[in-house]
């Protein structure tokens, strides 16, 4: 097993937190995971630092703060006993923003994607409500109240006075909604300079704990909240074999001190992790990697 995984995703989509939790999981062996750490060697400073932040409930520093980092983890499959090195070129999310906005990418990325055995594409479940139309926004406003309020204001101002003009924003590439960015980044893989081939793609929906209560499975979440991405993947089955996973690698909202205190009492840190997939619901963060390496 010699596997090259490419990690892709927009800024703050949970890429580095995933790596931090994965490193802790396979190194600590507190819970059962299909893949285990095979060798503890090489330059582990980056992995140890991000895992330290993860273990101590600090925000895992984003890749953009230290530049692009290539990470190699030596893994072994407990079932097949296959061994190999998993390479994760951990590119900053800003790199992918630049790909959409400035229409350029790093040559290393083109090379990594040409040799990949699977892509981990991160999408955060922490959505910002982008892409809403003016009409959709207006329909949410209590029209009667607005009308009455507007009448009162007009009365107070006097009939001659006009409402101040509303400042309108100019379009810029940074205004593109996340789901459109994701589709653009995946679409780019279908054209030069990227090599056309059938790719295995694990869609990792991070911050999955935020979806608690929605009752949605990861694929259904994608259909509902990222419909353009879902349609694109379904209709490009000649280019992508994909599965959607919900991952809560942090396991807790770091802003919620009470929840952090409670989680810190958990004797097995690896149990902070939650992975939900088509066949999985547990703590094994290696499940998407196992699927990427499989023939399914």
């Amino acid at each position, binding site marked *: 097993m010699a596997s090259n995984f490419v990690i892709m995703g927009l800024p703050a989509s949970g890429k580095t937190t995933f790596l931090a939790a994965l490193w802790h999981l396979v190194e600590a062996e507190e819970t059962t995971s299909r893949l285990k750490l095979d060798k503890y060697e090489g330059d582990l400073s980056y992995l140890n630092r991000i895992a330290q932040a993860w273990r101590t409930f600090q925000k895992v520093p984003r890749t953009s*703060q*230290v530049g692009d980092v290539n990470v190699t983890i030596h893994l072994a499959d407990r079932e097949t006993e296959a061994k190999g090195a998993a390479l994760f070129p951990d590119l900053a999310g800003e790199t992918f923003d630049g790909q959409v906005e400035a229409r350029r990418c790093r040559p290393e990325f083109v090379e990594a994607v040409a040799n990949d055995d699977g892509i981990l594409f991160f999408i955060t479940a922490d959505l910002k409500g982008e892409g809403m139309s003016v009409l959709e926004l207006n329909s949410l406003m209590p029209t009667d109240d607005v009308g009455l309020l507007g009448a009162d204001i007009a009365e107070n101002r006097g009939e001659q006075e006009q409402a101040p003009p509303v400042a309108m924003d100019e379009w810029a590439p940074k205004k*593109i909604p996340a789901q459109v960015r994701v589709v653009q980044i995946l679409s780019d893989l279908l054209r030069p300079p990227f090599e056309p081939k059938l790719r295995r793609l694990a869609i990792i929906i991070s911050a999955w704990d935020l979806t608690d209560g929605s009752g949605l499975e990861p694929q259904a979440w994608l259909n509902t909240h990222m419909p353009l991405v879902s349609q694109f993947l379904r209709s490009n089955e000649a280019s992508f074999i994909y599965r959607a996973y919900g991952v809560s690698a942090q396991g807790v909202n770091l802003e919620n001190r009470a929840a952090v205190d409670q989680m810190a009492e958990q004797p097995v840190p690896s149990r902070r992790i939650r992975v939900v997939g088509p066949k999985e619901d547990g703590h094994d963060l290696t499940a998407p990697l196992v699927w990427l390496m499989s023939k399914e």
Partner: protein
Amino acid sequence: MTDELDRDDADTDVFETAGVGQTKETDNRWVELPPASMLTVEDADELLRWREASIIAIVGERNGGKTTLVVELYERFLRGPFAGTLFSHSLSVLGFERKSFQSRAESGAEKPDTPRTSTQDGLRFFHLAVSDEHLRRTDLLISERAGETYREVRDRPAGARDIVEVCKARTVVFILDGERVANPRQRAEAIASIRHLARAFTESNAISSHCEIQAVTTKWDLLRTDASAPAQKALDEFEKYFIATYSSRYAKVSVFRVAARDPEGVVEVGFGLAPLLRSWLEPVPQAAVTALPIPLLADEFDRLLARRLG
């Protein structure tokens, strides 16, 4: 416990030896990616060299709602499958986004709008590929050109054959501005505009006989009330004229009424767009193959071949 956490926050800096915050900006090696804005004629030609695509020419004078119609098609796919199809691909995502922005809440606009298409932009295309339930893909190249250019064709029909998107179209969509039809003082002129354009392109033989032509009335939200009965009657009559005049001339003639985006929010967004999109995806009418006259076969080898072929 909270105090302990605070102390940890203060004491631990996991990147204190790693130069935190020093983003690597010295690496200037980049690979350029293909543009994702609207396609030029050259871009469209390049696409057509490796993939079949239907050209949909959207024709009409300024402010008729040509761009809004196309942009709202794209917006429907941002919300889910549309017209029984899935979004499959677009080479002009940034072009769609730029034209969509003024209809988005993020723009700060109180009412949705669409930026005007400038004459200086010349001819551009939106690219939209969709797949049906069997994942059969159809690519559309939808034209985008300023209405002033079509006004010139109306005034000088000799220029019709220079409008390349019409000459190469699978479907020519003549836009009838519903807002002007709703206005009694502008109604006759609005109808005259589409009538003249259809006539100019037809009489100059700019449109292939294998093409489908459509009269699409936009802003239907302004025409649907009882108060608009005279406008509706005029529209009914025009649509009958359009079908009767061109049915024998083209492979298919059809009429549609759409309200891509009712600013008042009364009519559902994208009203009438689904059947319009489906009509663009139907198989292109096949050209009739006319048997070419065979020249007199005087050569012995030709005659031998003719005998063997029976």
